[in-house]
């Protein structure tokens, strides 16, 4: 099946899901377009390699003078309407919204099929004060896409109708990394947005209980002050470093363990990448139906908000390089089996075909 498909997203990076899927769809003969909402060019640059004719930037902000003196109405009025205008120009047969908040705020053109991906943040905390938050989406979407069973369970709790087609498609990851050998201390890594949802204050506290380790946190976000203060308060300023988002390949190549302390439902996006790179994982539970999402020979799962338990698992791994090596091997095998990019695209194509019919 092929056809014109528009993926609507916000400020994607080169490594992000929309860009990876976009390239995959092009390779499969889809007439794919990438629509970027709130394209603030002061803070974000389009990833390299995206053909201009297929990249649609909406609500562009790039000129400080315009921001300072331009008519406020032009700058701030409903960016979603500008996205809708772009979609009307593209005339897609199918619109795939990258996350629930975009899907709720933006309407697809009449006649286009609608698929909405629901992410951890969407189903866990999106509109958490409003029990009917997702009602409009259930009415508009032809299908829902989630990346694991825990998210499907949470979506059901948030009111997803029983007859809604919900495709659980594991993310595809392709990473070929040469791991550098371990030097002295244990090298820990998190690749996460710096938001409270990632539980990084707890992983920082856990690290304070693990002797002789280094912890890199790669990401950006508004919770950085809280993390900087946590690092200072638990006394690990010298061993925990913050850095902006970077290419996950090199980051993972020089890590011994990936740490995910996420406190919302779903498997953290960085976990499949780590497994593909052969990096053992210590992670918090993914939520209902997600408890057994990953076997213990690749990932050690602890309760959320429990730094002591996390530290204990990290100490176990620190003391046992052989176990880490075994986990690394098993992780690569599991990633090949479960997080295959070709399979993800097959399943997405199948989902699109179903939605279009």
């Amino acid at each position, binding site marked *: 099946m092929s056809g014109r498909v528009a993926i609507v997203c916000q400020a994607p990076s080169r490594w992000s899901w929309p860009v990876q899927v976009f390239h995959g769809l092009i390779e499969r003969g889809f007439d794919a377009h990438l629509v970027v909402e709130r394209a603030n060019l002061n803070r974000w640059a389009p990833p390299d390699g995206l053909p201009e004719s297929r990249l649609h930037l909406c609500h562009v902000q790039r000129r400080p003078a315009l921001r300072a003196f331009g008519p406020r109405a032009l700058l701030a009025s409903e960016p979603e309407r500008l996205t809708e205008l772009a979609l009307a120009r593209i005339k897609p047969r199918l619109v795939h919204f990258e996350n629930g908040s975009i899907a709720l705020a933006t309407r697809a053109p009449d006649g286009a099929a609608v698929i909405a991906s629901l992410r951890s943040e969407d189903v866990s905390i999106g509109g958490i004060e409003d029990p009917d938050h997702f009602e409009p989406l259930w009415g508009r979407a032809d299908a829902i896409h989630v990346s694991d069973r825990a998210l499907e369970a949470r979506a059901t709790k948030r009111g997803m109708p029983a007859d809604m087609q919900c495709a659980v498609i594991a993310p595809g990851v392709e990473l070929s990394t040469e791991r550098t050998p371990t030097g002295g201390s244990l090298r820990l890594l998190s690749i996460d947005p710096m938001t409270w949802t990632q539980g990084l204050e707890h992983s920082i506290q856990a690290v304070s209980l693990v002797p002789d380790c280094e912890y890199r946190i790669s990401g950006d976000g508004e919770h950085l002050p809280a993390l900087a203060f946590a690092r200072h308060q638990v006394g690990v300023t010298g061993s925990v470093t913050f850095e902006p988002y970077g290419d996950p390949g090199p980051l993972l190549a020089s890590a011994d363990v990936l740490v995910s302390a996420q406190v919302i439902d779903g498997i953290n996006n960085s976990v499949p990448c780590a497994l593909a790179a052969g990096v053992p994982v210590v992670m918090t539970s993914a939520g209902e139906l997600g408890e057994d999402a990953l076997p213990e020979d690749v990932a050690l799962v602890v309760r*959320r908000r429990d730094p002591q338990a996390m530290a204990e698992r990290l100490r176990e791994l620190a003391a046992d390089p052989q176990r880490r090596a075994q986990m690394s091997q098993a992780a690569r095998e599991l990633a090949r089996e479960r997080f295959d990019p070709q399979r993800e695209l097959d399943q997405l194509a199948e989902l699109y075909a179903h939605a279009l019919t």
Partner: protein
Amino acid sequence: MAGPVPLIQGAHLLEVGLRWPPETFIQRKLRGLADAGMQVSVGSTTLAGPTPRALDGVRVVHMPHWRERPARQLAGVVGSALRPRTRALSAVRAAGGPLAPPFAAGFKRRLGLVRALSSLGHLRPDIVHFEWESAAVQFLPLAESLACPIVMSCRGGDIEIYPLIASEARWTSELPRAFEVAAAVHCVSEETKRSAVERGLDPDKAWLITPAVDPSFFVPPPWPRVRGEEMRLVSVGWLRWRKGWEYGLEALRRLVADGVPARLDVVGGEPGPDHGEASELPRILWAADELGLRERVQLLGGLSSTDVRELLQRADALLHPSLAEGIPNIVLEAMACGLPVVTTSAGGVREAVGDGVEGFVVAPRDPDGLARALATLWRDPRLAARMGAAGRSRVEASFTLAEQERRWASLYEHVLERAA
């Protein structure tokens, strides 16, 4: 205000950079100074819309925020030039005069300060006071141009956190200059003073004035405190990350798992734009939901002092899981109401609460410790009553509003004396 203090009688105090209405403890202070005969004016950046401007004896003036869009700032400057002579002169003086050198930081900030001065320049204060370190850093050039002594407050929290944040580098680099320019620096606790001295404060300028409460308003309940079927806990504070709400909820979960049928009332508003950080409300709702506490946690929003007092009187303990503090007013208010407190040792809390005396003090980020302390109080009502009584005595001895007002008067008198 107790006793005549001649120098401050009729002196004009200008408080710059307050949100309006300000926190209850600042309102009390301003009213107290006005009652003592000072002229009190407030320049507020958040005064807008239907916000009531009235506070007995206090004049409130809107000053534009430098974060406003330059287009609006520019329009404001032009507007101010058309206003009465005094304001226009102030604005012109600010644009080209003593304010110029520090303004290299940015066009927007410069415009904002010129506009602020055009709003406040005609007030001719005898003292300018910044109640928050961030206001001092932000509006210091403005205060300097008013050519009067400057007092600033260090209230804890910010001085612990901001120096750790790269995006607040300007705050950190300009704070020592604010300390240098200030005639006196008020610190809410010894711990806060220690942090300020680390950041460049001359200890001789420091004035320790702790928070205080009115023990005739915050009183123990007129009825005997009797253990009910559930342990009633109260937490009060802005819904900001530094208040440690998630740790408090985790403590509640552990407490319930330990067999204590507890419930928690959370009182506090969401941070405003001037706080510059996101609300913790979604995080609190999520944690309560995920930890199975939805039925045990009630979010009440911001409440009046009278409503807070009633909650404290009906509660079994105050739970204060904060991560960064000066000395929190709510802890003193709870103690005044004869309520045992379970709190972290953040900031200067230990200067008000003795561990095992007026309540329990545990390390920040230790939900297990908080839960154990609460369970102890639940299982030993006599201990809880003893701690409550000790808290009341401690407040009466060391944290009364009357004593605090005396200290404020002394501070301002000292500053005016030196200026004279």
